[in-house]
């Protein structure tokens, strides 16, 4: 069972309407790299051309916001939930 990417409604049209996708990987970066190959339009909504998460994209891995932890290097496991949410202003920790 691969990590499970959970999508908000605005992004589901880029996944044929699915709310969840299984994407392999052992870190968030690997998951998104594989997503970039399989569904580049969807991945582009989450990361910019530098490979960084967009400023108003929040990702939670198993309930923990990655920007308050290891970011793209956050470990994921079989069955992990990778939950994507649009941030409201102020909802993201200040960089650095």
């Amino acid at each position: 069972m691969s990590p499970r990417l959970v999508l908000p409604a605005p992004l589901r049209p880029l996944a044929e309407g699915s709310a969840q996708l299984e994407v392999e990987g052992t870190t968030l970066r690997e998951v998104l790299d594989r997503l970039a190959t399989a569904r580049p339009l969807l991945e582009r909504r989450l990361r910019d051309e530098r490979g960084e998460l967009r400023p108003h994209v929040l990702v939670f891995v198993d309930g923990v916001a990655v920007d308050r932890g290891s970011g793209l290097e956050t470990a994921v496991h079989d069955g992990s939930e990778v939950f994507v949410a649009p941030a409201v202003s102020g909802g993201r920790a200040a960089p650095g």
Partner: protein
Amino acid sequence: MTLALVMIGTRKGLVLARSDGSRRTWSCDEVRFPNQEAYAVAIDERRDPPRLLVAGSTGWWGPFYAYSDDVGATWVEPETAPIAFPAATETALKRVWQIQPAPANQPGVVFAGVEPHALFRSDDGGESYALVEGLWAHPHRPEWRPGNGGACLHTVLPHPTDPRRCLVAMSTGGVYRTRDGGASWSPANRGIEVSFAPDDQRFPEYGQCVHKVAAHPDLPDRLFAQNHGGVYRSEDAGGAWTAVETGLPSNFGFPMVVHPRHPDTVFAVPLGEGRFPSSERCRVYRSTDAGQSWEGHDRGLPEDPYHGAVLRDAMCADRGDPAGLYFGTRVGEVYASLDDGESWMPVARHLSDVLTVRAAVVP
């Protein structure tokens, strides 16, 4: 059957207004790309049917870019990001502000002006772009600052006959031009005042907040500029600028459009107090003597106090006969004129605020 088309980019998506060749009555398609800011639209009339292009951004999910080869029935968003900064720049695209197909003598060439300040060029009709490195490497670039709307390169004016020449305008940064196909760029702001700068710094070499530059293809060395405080004309392709404001109620505004058939006729929409239309009247100002004098026209436009500003790309002309003129406002209305701006009729109402309009008559 002739199709008249107005692409209306709004804060909440793209609207296509359609009419027949008479351009008297209009109907609007449903909103495409809802909840996405359609900052840049273009109609590439070099193709048959014309290619429609749209780009913009959302508040969360980054930039978007798409094109249609069936006049808006279906849209293609390329899987590979068509406009993306090279890795070496360590920069991310924030927004596309301008899509500008080149003249017919450069088939396939399309330019894109973006935020942060940069120019991209496509040689495949807008399916993929490359950064114009010569401008990106310009030593002035670290000193170009964001205007209120962002660090945008919002105006691209390819020369109508010489593919080596092109002009861009930025807020802020001002006007730059190339004569070698983009390899090198020179500022072209002499005479344009920075009215909000200290007295001894009001005419810098660069750094102006030029809002829009326009030219007529028959007189490519004559330019008109709407500056952040100042309306200017140049007769030498931007070598020097002279204020041409007689008759304007305000020298602040955003759009500047040259009549497609008459190089001496130019249109502007000045803004006054509160950045509302001057005197709170929905009114277009026209000069028929290359900016020496201006007069307002508002027949057919709302008579009540009006608060919908016209943004820099929210005014345009088609190439029909007679020429059609169009403008959209921040209160979601679009108007058209078929008599050189003397009178106006509605194209669309009750939209979201209009960011950009482009129009074409398709035989």
